[in-house]
């Protein structure tokens, strides 16, 4: 059937780029879809094919391979698994398209976990990775005062990156304790080829206070962020700043996987076997969507998924050993930055939890699950469809986010009314 792609890769970050290139090297005709305007994902946002290193190398490889078609600015809004052929519906500037594929590789990455606290809806309170992304998108940070807070190694990478763009990073406030953070530092520096990267990061952070065991109390301001209050031990500290860059780790982005019926672990990641195959025939997953493990793990999983999808098993002779190293690193990462309830921000009854529908903590506390809360309060029913408040409610109330359904993104009426075309291989 000529209308069918041999493989469609969803997401053009490290895992997706690697999976697409590997599958194409194995002879498959590949379509690489990405919602962002340009390939690279979050970690390689703004990377150019001309640059040195792994990002440039992969972007060049993908752009120059005749077997790969790249479609940027294309968001999957519906997906249906079939026995032999799967169907994705994507929304792009040109309208809606159907895509039929024998194999699908999900590399949809992760989003930041946001937790509600007083003042978090003020303009100026942004994601940690969010501010990094805005800066790469052209936001001028020269001389701007930033407090970085929350949890995870991303905070450090962000602090170093923002400073390089001219920001004055006043402090990095981490909820985890020093022993965990130190254990992570040792594990990260021991990864093959990572010692130099760790030293460079340390140099980029020199002079920035890094506070472990620190709790975020509230953001202060009237219509715009003016300062941030943190707690260290029994002492509260208020820092005047222009941006609070905050994130409490990453959450696998499993929406497309959910529509396809792929089983998900208790930790909220897509369940895969040693070949990155999901529980659904012909559907693979790679990278952060299978669990948060960083760029090296994502590249390895992309390679494995690409090989498995195209039958190049001989290329995977040393992948079990590499995968074991990655798994150990991932376990250390999880342990080191596990969220500790006594260090997390505590919302007051008036704190907004669902930003789209302005649903407050006091309205949600009485419910026992996501569905009941959603039906009664409209929590999670706004434009973002629970992308922000879903993970927050999971951490705050222990609810499992559910009810993912198409369309995954709000669509303009003009797109809904037009007949979708079918995007076929060239």
């Amino acid at each position: 059937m000529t209308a069918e792609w041999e493989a469609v890769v969803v997401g053009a970050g490290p895992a997706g780029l690697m999976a697409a290139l590997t599958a194409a090297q194995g002879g498959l005709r590949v379509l690489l879809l990405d919602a962002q305007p340009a390939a690279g994902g979050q970690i390689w946002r703004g990377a150019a094919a001309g640059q040195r290193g792994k990002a440039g190398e992969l972007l060049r490889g993908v752009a120059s391979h005749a077997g790969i078609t790249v479609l940027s600015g294309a968001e999957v809004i519906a997906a249906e698994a079939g026995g032999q052929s799967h169907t994705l519906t994507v929304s792009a500037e040109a309208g809606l398209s159907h895509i039929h594929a024998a194999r699908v590789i999900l590399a949809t990455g992760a989003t930041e976990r946001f937790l509600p606290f007083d003042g978090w809806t003020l303009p100026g309170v942004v994601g940690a990775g969010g501010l990094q992304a805005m800066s790469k998108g052209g936001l001028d940070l020269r001389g701007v005062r930033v407090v970085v807070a929350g949890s995870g190694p991303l905070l450090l990478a962000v602090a170093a990156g923002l400073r390089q763009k001219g920001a004055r990073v006043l402090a990095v406030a981490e909820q985890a304790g020093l022993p965990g953070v130190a254990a992570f530092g040792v594990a990260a520096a021991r990864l093959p080829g990572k010692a130099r990267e760790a030293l460079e990061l340390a140099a980029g952070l020199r002079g920035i206070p890094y506070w472990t065991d620190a709790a975020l109390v509230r953001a202060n301001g009237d219509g715009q962020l003016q300062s941030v209050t943190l707690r260290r031990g029994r002492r509260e500290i208020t820092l005047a700043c222009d941006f609070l860059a905050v994130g409490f780790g990453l959450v696998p982005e499993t929406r497309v996987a959910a529509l396809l019926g792929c089983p998900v672990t208790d930790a909220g990641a897509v369940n895969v076997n040693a070949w990155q195959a999901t529980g659904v025939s012909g559907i693979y997953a790679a990278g952060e969507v299978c669990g948060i493990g960083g760029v090296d793990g994502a590249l390895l999983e992309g390679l494995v998924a690409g090989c498995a999808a195209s039958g190049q098993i001989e290329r995977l002779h040393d992948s079990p050993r590499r995968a074991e190293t990655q798994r150990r690193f991932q376990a250390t990462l999880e342990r080191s930055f596990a969220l500790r309830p006594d260090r997390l921000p505590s919302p007051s009854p008036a704190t907004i939890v669902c930003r789209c529908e302005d649903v407050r903590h006091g309205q949600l506390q009485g419910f026992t699950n996501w569905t009941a809360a959603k039906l009664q309060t409209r929590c999670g029913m706004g434009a973002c469809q629970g992308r922000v408040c879903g993970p927050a409610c999971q951490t705050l109330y222990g609810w499992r986010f559910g009810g993912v359904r198409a369309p995954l993104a709000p669509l303009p009426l003009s797109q809904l009314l037009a007949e979708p075309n079918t995007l076929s291989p060239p």
Partner: protein
Amino acid sequence: MPELTLEGVRATVPPGTTVLAALQNAGLSPLRHSLSGGARGALCGMGSCYECRAVVDGLTVRSCLTPVREGQDVWRLEVNCDG
């Protein structure tokens, strides 16, 4: 460098800039008001949170996912946003 119009004012921005960064650098804050009237700005920077929606050439888009282009006409969601 692309020249666009931000709420009626012409601005020249470097290519590769997002419409969100153009709005932020021009000091156009807040981007919107919430249902209960609270001032809001961009949050996630990657297309998930929908806080950065703006009207570009008459269409509501996520401004963080929208690159600047020559001649764009950009407005915040509420025209009478006075901060």
